[in-house]
Protein backbone atom coordinates (compact mmCIF):
# COMPACT_ATOMS: atom_id res chain seq x y z
CA UNK A 1 0.00 0.00 0.00
CA UNK A 2 1.30 3.37 -0.94
CA UNK A 3 0.70 6.17 1.45
CA UNK A 4 3.09 8.53 -0.27
CA UNK A 5 2.04 12.10 -0.66
CA UNK A 6 0.72 12.74 -4.18
CA UNK A 7 2.84 15.10 -6.23
CA UNK A 8 1.34 18.54 -6.37
CA UNK A 9 1.28 20.12 -9.83
CA UNK A 10 2.42 23.67 -9.66
CA UNK A 11 0.68 25.96 -12.14
CA UNK A 12 2.83 27.55 -14.80
CA UNK A 13 3.39 31.20 -14.40
CA UNK A 14 3.68 33.14 -17.65
CA UNK A 15 6.84 35.16 -17.98
CA UNK A 16 5.28 38.51 -17.50
CA UNK A 17 8.47 40.54 -17.57
CA UNK A 18 9.38 39.63 -21.15
CA UNK A 19 5.80 40.04 -22.34
CA UNK A 20 5.63 43.51 -20.86
CA UNK A 21 8.91 44.35 -22.63
CA UNK A 22 7.48 43.28 -25.96
CA UNK A 23 4.20 45.13 -25.50
CA UNK A 24 6.02 48.29 -24.44
CA UNK A 25 7.96 48.24 -27.70
CA UNK A 26 4.77 47.49 -29.62
CA UNK A 27 2.97 50.48 -28.09
CA UNK A 28 5.87 52.81 -28.90
CA UNK A 29 5.84 51.73 -32.53
CA UNK A 30 2.07 51.95 -32.81
CA UNK A 31 2.15 55.51 -31.52
CA UNK A 32 5.04 56.41 -33.83
CA UNK A 33 3.29 54.66 -36.71
CA UNK A 34 0.34 57.01 -36.63
CA UNK A 35 2.64 59.82 -37.72
CA UNK A 36 4.43 57.84 -40.44
CA UNK A 37 2.66 59.63 -43.27
CA UNK A 38 3.87 63.01 -42.19
CA UNK A 39 7.37 61.84 -43.05
CA UNK A 40 6.25 61.24 -46.65
CA UNK A 41 4.50 64.59 -46.95
CA UNK A 42 5.50 67.92 -45.50
CA UNK A 43 2.19 69.65 -44.91
CA UNK A 44 2.38 73.18 -43.47
CA UNK A 45 0.43 73.51 -40.24
CA UNK A 46 -1.55 76.50 -41.50
CA UNK A 47 -2.83 74.82 -44.67
CA UNK A 48 -6.37 73.45 -44.85
CA UNK A 49 -6.43 70.43 -47.13
CA UNK A 50 -9.56 69.46 -49.07
CA UNK A 51 -11.54 66.44 -47.88
CA UNK A 52 -11.83 63.32 -50.04
CA UNK A 53 -13.52 59.94 -49.77
CA UNK A 54 -10.80 58.29 -51.85
CA UNK A 55 -9.40 55.05 -50.39
CA UNK A 56 -6.05 55.33 -52.18
CA UNK A 57 -3.08 55.72 -49.90
CA UNK A 58 -0.26 58.18 -50.36
CA UNK A 59 2.87 57.16 -52.21
CA UNK A 60 6.42 58.31 -51.71
CA UNK A 61 7.05 60.90 -54.42
CA UNK A 62 8.26 64.49 -54.78
CA UNK A 63 5.86 67.10 -53.45
CA UNK A 64 4.61 70.46 -54.59
CA UNK A 65 2.62 72.73 -52.27
CA UNK A 66 0.40 75.55 -53.50
CA UNK A 67 -0.36 78.06 -50.81
CA UNK A 68 -1.68 81.50 -51.61
CA UNK A 69 0.37 82.99 -54.40
CA UNK A 70 3.41 80.77 -53.82
CA UNK A 71 4.44 77.25 -54.69
CA UNK A 72 6.98 75.16 -52.76
CA UNK A 73 8.90 72.21 -54.14
CA UNK A 74 10.25 69.42 -51.93
CA UNK A 75 13.04 68.90 -54.48
CA UNK A 76 14.52 72.38 -54.21
CA UNK A 77 13.10 73.20 -50.74
CA UNK A 78 12.35 76.66 -52.10
CA UNK A 79 9.30 78.82 -52.61
CA UNK A 80 8.50 80.34 -55.99
CA UNK A 81 5.80 82.76 -57.09
CA UNK A 82 2.80 80.96 -58.57
CA UNK A 83 2.77 83.18 -61.64
CA UNK A 84 6.16 81.72 -62.61
CA UNK A 85 4.09 79.09 -64.44
CA UNK A 86 2.02 81.62 -66.34
CA UNK A 87 2.43 82.02 -70.11
CA UNK A 88 4.17 85.37 -69.64
CA UNK A 89 6.98 83.91 -67.50
CA UNK A 90 7.61 80.72 -69.49
CA UNK A 91 10.75 82.08 -71.10
CA UNK A 92 12.31 83.62 -68.00
CA UNK A 93 15.60 82.31 -66.66
CA UNK A 94 13.98 81.53 -63.28
CA UNK A 95 11.38 79.31 -64.92
CA UNK A 96 13.98 77.53 -67.08
CA UNK A 97 16.19 76.92 -64.01
CA UNK A 98 13.25 75.46 -62.11
CA UNK A 99 12.30 73.31 -65.09
CA UNK A 100 15.87 71.95 -65.25
CA UNK A 101 15.88 71.13 -61.54
CA UNK A 102 12.53 69.34 -61.80
CA UNK A 103 13.59 67.43 -64.91
CA UNK A 104 16.72 66.26 -63.11
CA UNK A 105 14.67 65.28 -60.05
CA UNK A 106 12.34 63.29 -62.26
CA UNK A 107 15.26 61.49 -63.93
CA UNK A 108 16.89 60.79 -60.56
CA UNK A 109 13.64 59.48 -59.12
CA UNK A 110 13.12 57.30 -62.15
CA UNK A 111 16.66 55.87 -61.87
CA UNK A 112 16.22 55.06 -58.19
CA UNK A 113 12.83 53.47 -58.74
CA UNK A 114 14.17 51.23 -61.48
CA UNK A 115 17.19 50.26 -59.43
CA UNK A 116 15.47 49.51 -56.14
CA UNK A 117 11.90 48.50 -56.88
CA UNK A 118 10.30 48.47 -60.25
CA UNK A 119 7.23 50.46 -59.43
CA UNK A 120 5.32 53.21 -61.13
CA UNK A 121 6.07 55.97 -58.68
CA UNK A 122 8.91 57.41 -60.76
CA UNK A 123 6.74 59.94 -62.56
CA UNK A 124 4.36 60.66 -59.68
CA UNK A 125 4.13 63.99 -57.91
CA UNK A 126 2.11 64.76 -54.79
CA UNK A 127 0.18 68.01 -55.09
CA UNK A 128 -0.72 69.61 -51.78
CA UNK A 129 -2.94 72.69 -51.98
CA UNK A 130 -5.20 74.80 -49.81
CA UNK A 131 -8.82 73.71 -50.28
CA UNK A 132 -9.83 77.21 -51.39
CA UNK A 133 -7.26 77.34 -54.21
CA UNK A 134 -9.06 78.25 -57.46
CA UNK A 135 -9.10 75.67 -60.24
CA UNK A 136 -7.25 77.96 -62.66
CA UNK A 137 -4.18 77.83 -60.39
CA UNK A 138 -4.44 74.07 -59.94
CA UNK A 139 -4.74 73.49 -63.68
CA UNK A 140 -1.87 75.87 -64.49
CA UNK A 141 0.47 73.93 -62.21
CA UNK A 142 -0.78 70.49 -63.28
CA UNK A 143 -0.43 71.33 -66.97
CA UNK A 144 3.15 72.56 -66.61
CA UNK A 145 4.22 69.65 -64.44
CA UNK A 146 2.77 67.20 -66.96
CA UNK A 147 4.72 68.96 -69.71
CA UNK A 148 7.91 68.56 -67.65
CA UNK A 149 7.26 64.82 -67.39
CA UNK A 150 5.34 64.12 -64.20
CA UNK A 151 2.66 61.98 -65.78
CA UNK A 152 0.71 61.22 -62.62
CA UNK A 153 -0.24 64.11 -60.41
CA UNK A 154 -1.61 63.04 -57.05
CA UNK A 155 -4.12 65.35 -55.34
CA UNK A 156 -3.67 65.09 -51.59
CA UNK A 157 -6.64 65.42 -49.25
CA UNK A 158 -7.77 64.54 -45.76
CA UNK A 159 -10.09 61.64 -45.05
CA UNK A 160 -13.80 62.35 -45.35
CA UNK A 161 -16.16 59.80 -43.79
CA UNK A 162 -18.53 58.32 -46.35
Amino acid at each position, binding site marked *: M*KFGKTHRHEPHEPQLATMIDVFSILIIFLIAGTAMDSSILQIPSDIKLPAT*ISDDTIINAPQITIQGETIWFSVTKQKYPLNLFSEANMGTQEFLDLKNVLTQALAENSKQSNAIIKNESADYLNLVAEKSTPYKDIFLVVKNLKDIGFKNIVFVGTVQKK
Partner: protein
Amino acid sequence: MADFLIKPPRRTVKEIPLAPILDLLTVVIFFLILSTSFEEVRQNTIPQSQLIKPDSADTAKPEIPLNPKVLLAESQNSYKIVVTWTGDHPGSLSKNVAKDNQDYNKNLYQMTQELLDQYIQKFPNEKTIQIGFESKISFQNVITIYDAVYSKLKDIVLLSNVDSDAILSSR
Protein backbone atom coordinates in the same frame (compact mmCIF):
# COMPACT_ATOMS: atom_id res chain seq x y z
CA MET B 1 9.67 -6.55 -1.89
CA ALA B 2 11.42 -3.34 -1.07
CA ASP B 3 10.39 -1.82 -4.38
CA PHE B 4 7.64 0.21 -2.85
CA LEU B 5 10.15 1.90 -0.59
CA ILE B 6 12.03 3.37 -3.52
CA LYS B 7 10.88 6.84 -4.23
CA PRO B 8 9.56 7.04 -7.78
CA PRO B 9 11.40 9.55 -10.01
CA ARG B 10 9.73 12.92 -9.90
CA ARG B 11 7.86 13.75 -13.05
CA THR B 12 9.22 16.86 -14.57
CA VAL B 13 6.85 18.98 -16.61
CA LYS B 14 8.47 20.46 -19.67
CA GLU B 15 8.18 24.20 -19.71
CA ILE B 16 7.50 25.93 -22.98
CA PRO B 17 10.50 28.18 -23.71
CA LEU B 18 8.62 31.46 -23.87
CA ALA B 19 11.61 33.76 -24.11
CA PRO B 20 12.75 32.76 -27.65
CA ILE B 21 9.15 32.78 -28.87
CA LEU B 22 8.73 36.30 -27.58
CA ASP B 23 12.03 37.31 -29.17
CA LEU B 24 10.79 35.95 -32.48
CA LEU B 25 7.46 37.72 -32.15
CA THR B 26 9.27 40.96 -31.42
CA VAL B 27 11.07 40.69 -34.74
CA VAL B 28 7.81 39.83 -36.52
CA ILE B 29 6.09 42.81 -34.95
CA PHE B 30 8.79 45.12 -36.35
CA PHE B 31 8.07 43.89 -39.85
CA LEU B 32 4.31 44.09 -39.35
CA ILE B 33 4.56 47.66 -38.15
CA LEU B 34 6.88 48.65 -40.98
CA SER B 35 4.51 47.21 -43.55
CA THR B 36 1.52 49.02 -42.05
CA SER B 37 0.73 52.62 -42.77
CA PHE B 38 -1.59 54.67 -40.66
CA GLU B 39 -2.97 57.14 -43.12
CA GLU B 40 -4.21 60.59 -42.42
CA VAL B 41 -4.23 61.69 -46.01
CA ARG B 42 -5.49 60.12 -49.20
CA GLN B 43 -4.77 60.63 -52.85
CA ASN B 44 -6.59 61.13 -56.10
CA THR B 45 -4.44 60.35 -59.10
CA ILE B 46 -5.03 61.97 -62.44
CA PRO B 47 -4.10 59.12 -64.77
CA GLN B 48 -2.29 59.37 -68.07
CA SER B 49 -4.47 59.90 -71.09
CA GLN B 50 -5.42 56.68 -72.77
CA LEU B 51 -6.59 55.83 -76.22
CA ILE B 52 -9.33 53.24 -76.43
CA LYS B 53 -8.78 50.85 -79.31
CA PRO B 54 -12.05 50.24 -81.12
CA ASP B 55 -13.30 46.69 -81.70
CA SER B 56 -12.77 45.33 -85.18
CA ALA B 57 -16.55 45.23 -85.72
CA ASP B 58 -16.75 48.95 -85.12
CA THR B 59 -14.05 49.88 -87.61
CA ALA B 60 -16.41 49.45 -90.54
CA LYS B 61 -18.64 52.23 -89.31
CA PRO B 62 -16.68 54.84 -87.41
CA GLU B 63 -18.82 56.63 -84.90
CA ILE B 64 -18.52 60.25 -83.93
CA PRO B 65 -16.72 60.31 -80.55
CA LEU B 66 -18.90 61.12 -77.57
CA ASN B 67 -16.38 63.39 -75.82
CA PRO B 68 -18.36 63.26 -72.59
CA LYS B 69 -17.70 66.00 -70.07
CA VAL B 70 -18.70 66.78 -66.50
CA LEU B 71 -18.60 70.52 -65.88
CA LEU B 72 -19.13 72.54 -62.73
CA ALA B 73 -20.19 76.18 -62.60
CA GLU B 74 -20.75 78.30 -59.51
CA SER B 75 -23.28 81.04 -58.87
CA GLN B 76 -23.97 83.02 -55.72
CA ASN B 77 -26.03 80.40 -53.89
CA SER B 78 -25.67 77.24 -55.91
CA TYR B 79 -23.57 75.03 -58.14
CA LYS B 80 -24.60 73.81 -61.57
CA ILE B 81 -23.44 70.36 -62.64
CA VAL B 82 -23.57 69.67 -66.37
CA VAL B 83 -22.95 66.32 -68.05
CA THR B 84 -22.65 66.84 -71.79
CA TRP B 85 -21.69 64.69 -74.77
CA THR B 86 -21.56 64.87 -78.57
CA GLY B 87 -21.60 61.88 -80.94
CA ASP B 88 -24.46 60.71 -83.13
CA HIS B 89 -27.01 61.68 -80.51
CA PRO B 90 -25.63 64.66 -78.62
CA GLY B 91 -27.23 65.69 -75.39
CA SER B 92 -26.74 66.95 -71.88
CA LEU B 93 -28.01 66.60 -68.35
CA SER B 94 -27.81 69.23 -65.66
CA LYS B 95 -28.75 69.83 -62.06
CA ASN B 96 -28.47 72.66 -59.56
CA VAL B 97 -27.17 72.03 -56.06
CA ALA B 98 -27.44 74.51 -53.21
CA LYS B 99 -24.26 75.56 -51.45
CA ASP B 100 -23.82 74.46 -47.86
CA ASN B 101 -21.42 75.33 -45.08
CA GLN B 102 -19.92 71.87 -44.91
CA ASP B 103 -16.36 71.24 -46.09
CA TYR B 104 -17.49 68.36 -48.25
CA ASN B 105 -20.71 69.07 -50.14
CA LYS B 106 -22.35 65.64 -50.09
CA ASN B 107 -25.27 66.83 -52.22
CA LEU B 108 -22.85 67.85 -54.93
CA TYR B 109 -21.29 64.40 -54.74
CA GLN B 110 -24.64 62.57 -54.87
CA MET B 111 -26.16 64.69 -57.65
CA THR B 112 -23.07 64.18 -59.81
CA GLN B 113 -23.37 60.45 -59.26
CA GLU B 114 -27.06 60.53 -60.21
CA LEU B 115 -26.36 62.41 -63.43
CA LEU B 116 -23.57 60.00 -64.28
CA ASP B 117 -25.85 57.03 -63.62
CA GLN B 118 -28.27 58.40 -66.21
CA TYR B 119 -25.40 58.97 -68.65
CA ILE B 120 -23.98 55.46 -68.09
CA GLN B 121 -27.42 53.94 -68.75
CA LYS B 122 -27.35 55.60 -72.16
CA PHE B 123 -23.70 54.80 -72.93
CA PRO B 124 -22.63 51.78 -70.88
CA ASN B 125 -19.51 51.10 -72.98
CA GLU B 126 -17.99 54.57 -72.65
CA LYS B 127 -15.19 54.49 -70.09
CA THR B 128 -13.41 57.84 -70.44
CA ILE B 129 -14.71 61.20 -69.30
CA GLN B 130 -13.40 64.74 -69.03
CA ILE B 131 -13.98 66.90 -65.98
CA GLY B 132 -13.81 70.67 -66.18
CA PHE B 133 -14.44 73.54 -63.84
CA GLU B 134 -14.95 77.27 -63.97
CA SER B 135 -11.75 79.17 -63.13
CA LYS B 136 -12.98 80.24 -59.67
CA ILE B 137 -14.14 76.78 -58.49
CA SER B 138 -12.30 75.79 -55.31
CA PHE B 139 -9.94 72.83 -55.05
CA GLN B 140 -12.35 71.26 -52.53
CA ASN B 141 -15.13 71.14 -55.13
CA VAL B 142 -12.70 69.79 -57.72
CA ILE B 143 -11.96 66.91 -55.36
CA THR B 144 -15.66 66.35 -54.59
CA ILE B 145 -16.55 66.09 -58.28
CA TYR B 146 -13.48 63.93 -58.91
CA ASP B 147 -14.58 61.54 -56.13
CA ALA B 148 -18.09 61.27 -57.60
CA VAL B 149 -16.89 60.73 -61.17
CA TYR B 150 -14.16 58.27 -60.13
CA SER B 151 -16.75 56.16 -58.30
CA LYS B 152 -18.44 55.59 -61.69
CA LEU B 153 -15.73 55.93 -64.36
CA LYS B 154 -12.02 55.37 -63.85
CA ASP B 155 -10.48 57.12 -66.85
CA ILE B 156 -10.66 60.82 -66.04
CA VAL B 157 -9.02 63.65 -67.97
CA LEU B 158 -8.82 67.20 -66.67
CA LEU B 159 -10.24 69.86 -68.97
CA SER B 160 -8.66 73.31 -68.85
CA ASN B 161 -10.46 76.12 -67.09
CA VAL B 162 -10.38 78.18 -70.31
CA ASP B 163 -12.20 75.45 -72.26
CA SER B 164 -14.62 74.87 -69.38
CA ASP B 165 -15.43 78.56 -69.11
CA ALA B 166 -16.05 78.71 -72.86
CA ILE B 167 -18.37 75.70 -72.86
CA LEU B 168 -20.28 76.84 -69.80
CA SER B 169 -20.72 80.40 -71.02
CA SER B 170 -22.05 79.15 -74.37
CA ARG B 171 -24.83 77.22 -72.65
